[in-house]
């Protein structure tokens, strides 16, 4: 791996950038590994990176059925924040935000983490009460979150329409200043490059089609479209396809997969300074460094793997955007797409062991797992290496649906990215 530095950049600038090597190898799968990760998104590649870096497991592979970052990691609207209500969630997402703050240096790769602030709008009395409760709960957990009046919200985000005669007037907002966005592809590529440099094999176009188990029930290996691989540890990080992958080992999951859509506008000059979310009217918006408005919409109501959602879902979001930001009414939308998100009954992820020995799962991130990538990958690697959860992911078991110890962020925030 050639490190990025002022000198390497300068010398390549003189050399028309012809001297950069491949950022990661394209190895063929070996017959056996100490562990394999299924799914080459930010969570799977991150787990491989931390397994190699912090736990010394370098004879491992990431198996990706398409190309790395082609799943939700490359399709999301990149909102990052940690102002979740419950202690368990706050600890998990805050662990991630702390890692985000040092990630570009850690990976020697610019992930363009920009802490421009995430503003969440309240449009009714229930929103006001619930967001204030979040502000207080977050502060008790040492997480920054503050309450703004409509005027203060407008001062922070000048394009915002706080007129009292709009259909759902802004009654205030919660602001997490340390929240923001990052470049999704860069996170995937940065982890891939770092893991590869430590010896991890990243194998693309390699779909896992079977999971083998021995007489004691423990996993012994996988079949893939590129041959069989023996291994004693498998980490599943397959987002929307987790039910199918876990089904290969005979495990039924408390998951349903739905299409979630996003869209981007034509690029324009900088006009939108922060990330803004409105759960009540379904609007999620920020501006990328390229100048496009990045807009997140909602999920469809039915299970689907079609990677495209209904047009009425995006229209609904654009209605809300136009009402809140009249200046955008004549903006052209350039592209829209969908990703398949795996949703748990309590809207919290599952990171941990499974009833099958040697099989670990990291899933259920639904509409909001990009923000957690470094934290989730970090504790998932710990769980795989030690065969026991890190204290941060210990509450996020699959077993909580049996014991009833749910982490009900669904009730805390109806929708959230």
């Amino acid at each position, binding site marked *: 791996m050639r490190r990025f530095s002022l000198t390497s950049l300068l010398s390549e600038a003189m050399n028309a950038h012809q001297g950069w090597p491949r950022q990661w190898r394209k190895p063929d799968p070996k017959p056996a590994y100490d562990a394999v990760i299924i799914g080459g998104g930010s969570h799977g590649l991150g787990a491989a990176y931390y397994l190699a870096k912090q736990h010394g497991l370098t004879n491992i592979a990431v198996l990706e059925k398409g190309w790395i970052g082609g799943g939700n990691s490359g399709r999301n609207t990149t909102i990052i924040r940690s102002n979740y209500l419950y202690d368990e969630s706050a600890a998990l997402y805050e662990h991630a935000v702390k890692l985000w703050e040092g990630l570009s240096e850690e990976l020697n790769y610019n992930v363009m983490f920009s802490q421009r602030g995430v503003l969440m709008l309240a449009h009714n009395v229930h929103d006001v009460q619930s967001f204030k409760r979040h502000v207080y709960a977050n502060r008790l957990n040492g997480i920054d979150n503050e309450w703004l009046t409509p005027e203060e919200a407008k001062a922070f985000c000048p394009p915002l329409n706080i007129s009292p005669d709009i259909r759902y007037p802004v009654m205030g907002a919660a602001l997490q200043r340390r929240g923001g966005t990052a470049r999704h592809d860069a996170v995937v590529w940065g982890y891939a490059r770092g893991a590869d440099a430590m010896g991890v094999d990243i194998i693309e176009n390699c779909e896992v089609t079977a999971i083998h188990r021995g007489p004691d029930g423990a996993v012994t290996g996988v079949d893939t479209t590129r041959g069989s691989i023996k291994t004693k540890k498998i980490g599943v990080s397959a987002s929307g*396809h987790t*039910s*199918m992958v876990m089904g290969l080992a005979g495990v*039924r*999951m*408390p*998951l*349903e*997969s739905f299409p979630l859509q996003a869209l981007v506008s034509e690029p324009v000059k900088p006009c939108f300074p922060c990330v803004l979310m409105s759960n009540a009217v379904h609007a999620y918006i920020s501006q990328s460094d390229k100048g496009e408005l990045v807009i997140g919409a909602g999920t469809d*109501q*039915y*299970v*689907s*793997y*079609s990677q*495209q959602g*209904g*047009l*009425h879902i995006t229209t609904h979001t654009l209605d809300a955007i136009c009402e809140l930001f009249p200046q955008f009414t004549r903006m052209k939308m350039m592209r829209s797409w969908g990703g398949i998100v795996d949703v748990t*009954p309590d809207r919290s992820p599952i990171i941990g062991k499974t009833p099958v020995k040697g099989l670990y799962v990291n899933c259920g991130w639904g509409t909001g797992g990009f923000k957690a990538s470094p934290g989730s990958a970090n504790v998932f690697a710990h769980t795989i290496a030690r065969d026991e959860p890190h204290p941060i992911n210990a509450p996020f078991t699959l077993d909580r*649906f*049996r*014991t*009833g110890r749910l982490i009900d962020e669904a009730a805390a925030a109806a929708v959230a990215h």
Partner: protein
Amino acid sequence: MLLVTCPYCGARPEIEFHCGGEAHIARPETPSALSDADWAAYLFERSNPKGVHAERWRHLHGCGRWFNALRNTVSDTFLASYRMGEPRPDVSAPSDTSKAGAR
């Protein structure tokens, strides 16, 4: 938007309907007799297939009735709609609603 066929009213746009999730999950007769694991399986585990899915729909802004439908979750094509209480149709046999519901 999907075109959903209500067995009582015919094909209507999806926004008239509410999807009620996986069909044919019977509530256990005596929940108190169940183990926690079986109760969790009933409440939370779903088949979530990439392929044919049997699901409940309610014609919310129409006749108001519940019914079941079979849909391919890759193409979103509906294969059948049938009334509550009727058995899941064998989709290999062509049905008169098989063409309904293209996107």
